[in-house]
């Protein structure tokens, strides 16, 4: 069984993002970029399935600028077997990514695609669902546990008030949540080995997809600064402040 895992290059989660002065987005030039943390979890899960003998090949896919090859390389160092880079100069929105992924699924014929539940840059939480719809495959989103047996997969999802377990038939789409696993470190010998693993490069045209954005970004702004809290001495003072200052009662 082949597993396809898309990995997105995003601003590193340790970076304090800054909105560009002209409000067209966040500053990314000169900012540290890394693999979307949810995609790291997806790679980890796929590699574990391979180590258990359930999967035979793990393919990491990244889409965007040429530097996405670095993100693929990270996946290869964690244990993915090969990479596919879809190079595109235009911004890729979830629908375009889902269409490109569909084309790759048609080409590679995987039984499972594991995506992150969202990317930490735009928090869209859409690509996995769109891909499932385009393929007509069952989907298990926000997975905190998955188990494969025969041609089925059971996906445990975290929902309000508890856990829900779905039984899906393969091929299927899974999107990973934070608690699915803890991604491994890429050991130095594996980082070096990853340099020799193949990365195939292609363009959206090669896959017959027009990636032109359908959504227009109007503006991006910093959230308002949170004010420091206040300590009150008594319930009476609290009530009076709620009435006169906060004006909520």
């Amino acid at each position, binding site marked *: 069984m082949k597993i396809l895992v898309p990995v997105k290059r995003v601003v590193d989660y340790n970076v304090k993002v800054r909105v560009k002065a002209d409000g067209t987005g966040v500053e990314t030039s*000169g*900012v*540290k*970029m*890394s693999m979307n943390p949810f995609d790291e979890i997806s790679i980890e899960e796929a590699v574990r399935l391979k180590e258990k003998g359930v999967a035979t090949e793990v393919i990491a896919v990244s889409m965007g600028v*040429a*530097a996405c*090859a*670095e993100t693929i*390389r*990270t996946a290869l*160092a964690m244990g993915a077997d090969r990479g596919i880079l879809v190079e595109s100069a235009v911004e890729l929105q979830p629908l375009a990514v889902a269409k490109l992924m569909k084309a790759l699924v048609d080409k590679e014929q995987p039984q499972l695609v594991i995506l992150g539940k969202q990317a930490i840059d735009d928090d869209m939480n859409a690509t996995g669902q769109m891909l499932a719809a385009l393929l007509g495959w069952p989907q298990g989103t926000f997975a905190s546990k998955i188990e494969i047996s025969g041609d089925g997969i059971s996906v445990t999802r975290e929902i309000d008030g508890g856990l829900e377990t779905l039984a899906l038939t393969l091929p299927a789409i899974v999107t990973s949540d934070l608690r699915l696993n803890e991604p491994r*470190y*890429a*050991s*130095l*010998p*594996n*980082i*070096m080995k*990853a*340099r020799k693993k193949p990365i195939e490069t292609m363009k959206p045209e090669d896959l017959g997809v027009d990636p032109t954005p359908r959504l227009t970004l109007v503006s991006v702004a910093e959230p308002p600064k949170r004010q420091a809290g206040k300590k009150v001495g008594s319930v009476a003072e609290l009530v009076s402040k709620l009435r006169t200052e906060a004006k909520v009662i």
Partner: protein
Amino acid sequence: MSAVLASSPTGCIAENPFLREEHIALRDQLRRFIRTEVAPHAGQWEIDGMVPRSILRRMGELGFLGIRYAQRYGGSEMDTIATAVLAEELGRSTFGGFAITVLVHTDMASPHIANAANAAQLDRYMPDIIAGRKIAAVAVTEPDAGSDVAAIRTTARREGDDWVLNGTKMYITNGVHGDVVLVAAKTDVSAKASRGVSIFIVEAGTPGFTIGRALDKQGWRSSDTAELVFEECRIPAINLLGSENRGFYAIMRNFQNERIVLGAQAMGEAQAALALTLDWVRNRKAFGGTLWDKQVIRQRLSMLASRVEAARCLVYQAAWLDAQGRDCIKDVSMVKALCGELVNDVMYDCQQFHGGMGYMRESAIERMVRDARIQAIGGGATEVMLEEVAKRL
């Protein structure tokens, strides 16, 4: 992609043209390891006076202890640039004692084996060293011979199939808890030191080899440092490392690597201190604004950040020269002199701008000030390094 990005002292980004993709990958793994496995626990290691062996073994598993060593022993055959990345990131951890525990093992002690050992010695020691199962120390300095290496008085005399060591070594990092010590001793007392010193492998527990005392230090508190005593310590002849009487050259050669590493470590420490201080002064309120609003503070920190960035470039340039196999004694001596002093300048101002908090044990900067002091003394004191530069100007 030959030019890639690396964090600068200020937390934003400066190009580091020396780093390739695998260097960045190494750095990212180190940062994660330090953030999750080191930073939350290292305060306790400072109290314990040692780094737990389990941490060193974990670093071994991840390949951090075999960066430049042969793949057949578990190494990754990377270059001096990767070594500089390791040292810089360990320095950035803010725990100098942890950093030096690792760096003495990887870059000051074990290179003696990697560079000079015969096949049997390599097979015996390298796999355990790279895996972190055996921790190495190097013992050159003595109570009466530090900068002046040629003045060492420890001797080794040949008796049949053995060597017998006598003497005392001082300030030996990893000396208390290390497993393998590379000991410099005179094997020809009548010759000049440059022609009469050899290096020996001495394993912990060898009869006649004892720890005189564990030393109590100003900083580097999580690093164990010892006085080592050799009294009729008998080791088999096969424990001679490299050629007899050629040890002085081995020491001089390895000093180059050691000093690149110390320079990189110091600049990692300086970057971390500047980042902590920036964060502090941007949040600390005084006189109707933050401390960052005071031009004198902004300017002093900006100049320090500039000096650190420049020194860091020199470190990587020296590492690059070394990686090309080029002679770089002048560059490396400059690195050691410059970085050893600069890290102390940085710590002084960073502590100053922390105000009273900088004097409190609970602040990281207080520890970093203590840790930095040795950078101008150990592994080639500033004055001695400047003499090496002067000879080559």
